[in-house]
């Protein structure tokens, strides 16, 4: 075990897979020589050469489209979109092509590729460095959407994603790159080296897709969260004293529904938390699933705590970001219902 930040864990996952599988290639904007604007690919080009790890022109549809072609050839591309906010030019290649290659060719051609993209707010990123576009991908048939919340899961999930034969959108909460963050922006940031989940095996291991993690066992209410919101929910539970069972989904879709259903049927209450905007966000799907599967067990209406239905603002960062106060209010609300 080694202490790793999420950045180091992600880099380690790519390092392990570049070493193990000669078909793995890594590319994107500034990914090669420079090692990525977030350092996630630092040193990989020097180690594996420019034909395995290389810089790409600034064209997201080109990066993903070329990746689809490489995957159709038989490679396993791990491509990077610099910010999730910039994935939109690539949506045609992701939704119309990568997602449907296997289906429309009846398995003749496949797209075993990973599309990495830093996502999420809480960093004064403003409108185009803070978005959480996961609902676009969970709504797309044929795509797997994954989001880790800590270094251990980040490495294990990324290796699992690279080894998986379906296209995977791999969302990385950049607020968690260097340390866990619970929404208390006024407090100093704690590095991953001080956190148990910063202990990461150096070699190969996987965290299975479609498996959720119980981040905090509890009896009173189930909180469904992922990414940065896992830590926000943990802090909200501690601050309110509500014995919340916090589920870190890890794989957004397809997801680990049994873990969620089992938890809600036990606690009989449910709060859903995400940074993304509310309307038609992924939380709506989670709410619908819980309602469908746990209706007769529920003691209170399901509550969603999400970003507001507005573009992500700059100066109003902490009024937008669903922090521990808002999540705590939701926990009290469902307990009082």
């Amino acid at each position, binding site marked *: 075990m080694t202490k790793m930040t999420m950045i180091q864990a992600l880099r380690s996952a790519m390092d392990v897979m570049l070493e193990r599988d000669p078909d793995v290639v890594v590319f994107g904007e500034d990914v090669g020589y420079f090692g990525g604007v977030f350092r996630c690919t630092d040193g990989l080009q020097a180690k594996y050469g420019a034909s395995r790890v290389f810089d790409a022109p600034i064209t997201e*549809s*080109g990066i993903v*489209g*070329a990746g689809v072609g490489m995957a159709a050839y038989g490679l396993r591309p791990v491509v990077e979109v610099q910010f999730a906010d910039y994935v939109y030019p690539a949506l045609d290649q992701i939704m119309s092509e990568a997602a449907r290659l296997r289906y429309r060719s*009846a398995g003749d051609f496949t797209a075993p590729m990973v599309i990495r993209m830093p996502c999420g707010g809480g960093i004064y990123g403003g409108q185009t460095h803070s978005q959480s576009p996961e609902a676009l991908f969970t709504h797309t048939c044929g795509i797997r959407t994954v989001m880790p919340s800590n270094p251990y899961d980040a490495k294990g999930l990324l290796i699992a994603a690279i080894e998986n034969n379906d296209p995977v959108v791999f969302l990385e909460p950049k607020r968690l790159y260097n340390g866990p963050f619970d929404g208390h922006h006024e407090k100093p940031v704690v590095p991953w080296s001080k956190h148990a989940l910063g202990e990461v095996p150096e070699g190969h291991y996987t965290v299975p897709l479609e498996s959720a993690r119980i981040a905090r066992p509890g009896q009173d209410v189930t909180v469904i969260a992922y990414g940065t919101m896992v830590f926000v929910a943990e802090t909200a539970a501690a601050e309110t004293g509500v014995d919340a069972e916090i589920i870190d989904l890890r794989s957004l879709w397809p997801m680990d529904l049994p873990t969620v259903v089992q938890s809600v049927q036990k606690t009989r209450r449910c709060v859903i938390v995400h940074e993304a905007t509310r309307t038609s966000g992924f939380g709506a799907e989670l709410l619908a699933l819980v309602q469908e599967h746990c209706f007769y067990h529920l003691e209170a209406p399901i509550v969603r705590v999400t970003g507001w239905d507005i573009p992500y603002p700059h100066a109003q960062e902490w009024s937008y970001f669903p922090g521990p106060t808002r999540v705590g209010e939701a926990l009290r609300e469902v307990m009082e219902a």
Partner: protein
Amino acid sequence: MVTPKRPRSGPGTGKLRLHVPEPSARPGQQTDFSYLKLSRAGEIPRPPVDCVYEDTIALKNGLIRVLDDAHQAQGPWDPKAGDEALRNGLRLMMLTRAFDARMVIAQRQKKTSFYMQSLGEEAIGVGQALSLEHDDMCFPSYRQQNILLARGYSLAQMMNQIYSNTADPLKGRQLPVLYSSKEYGFFTISGNLGTQYVQAVGWAMASAIKQDSRIASAWIGDGATAEADFYTALVFAQVYRAPVILNVINNQWAISTFQAIAGGTTATFAARGVGMGIASLRVDGNDYLAVLAASRWAAERARNNHGPTLIEWVSYRAGPHSTSDDPSKYRPADDWQRFPLGDPIERLRRHLTLRGAWSDAEHANTQADLEAQIIAAQKEAEKNGTLISGPQRTAADMFDDVFEQMPAHLVAQRQQLGV
């Protein structure tokens, strides 16, 4: 405090006008084809295959042609193809046209919902397919059925796809003509235009990464060059010197839209290639000998690490865009008869006849033979069903292949449907 308005001054302060290009003729009129930048057969020089893109800049407004008006081969691009190679090409072009004609009838008989002909464009895909190795991967649009035919794909299997019947290799999931065959080097066709162009470049990059010897052949129409993925593909192809042939079939029309709306009249599509630093050719797409010569040149170039080639094939979409289209609503009815580059089948037929390698009798026999093959294949395919008579693929096939392993939510949905 109100800022006073300053009067505008200087030249050119009149009213602006939006320019919207129009074809020279609409129904009932005659197209002025002088907008096509034509060259005489044999006139355009043939640079060495290891040339740099600058050596092709002068070619961007010319037109590589081998067959002259008297149907003789001329100039440095004469591929010196043997009689049998040309006869094979002619047969495959005739097969494509006969297949199309038969499938249009099948669509009118409601045996299928939809069909797209390639009437008038038969030379291009056939000539290129026969200039490639069998395992070079083609990334076609929906009008390169001749590549599958040239590679010997089963006629009945194509019809099974068109009919979405029980033997449809794509399990009834795709619209007719959106074929897929990895085995025959024919990439799965998407309804989304242009996407395959950059995928072809990625495939070619992968081949280079693996130090393979296979190359990619990318296909796009004049209209779809306006899609962003066209330019994206050119950037990637140039930057990484990808072993790819970037084919643009300029058939003058994108459904009802004349190619000037795609920007093709002011500057040729070949000019976009050289503008991006890619060796580019502009070729008579209805001249089978020129198709062979240019395709061989580009393939040799790619295979020897000299990089990508863009080829604008100048042709004419002789038929309707699809079985859902009526061209008489937007262009003259006799346009193809007046198109200066003629009919690719007739031109090769006349050339071979002059060489003593073909005759009217052989032409008629070949035509009859091909039609018999197609009818036999059609009977075989119709045993597996058609859209009107069934049987069709069952709903149970519908949930497979979304993912490699069927996830729980799709298992549940399939059970809900009871299949």
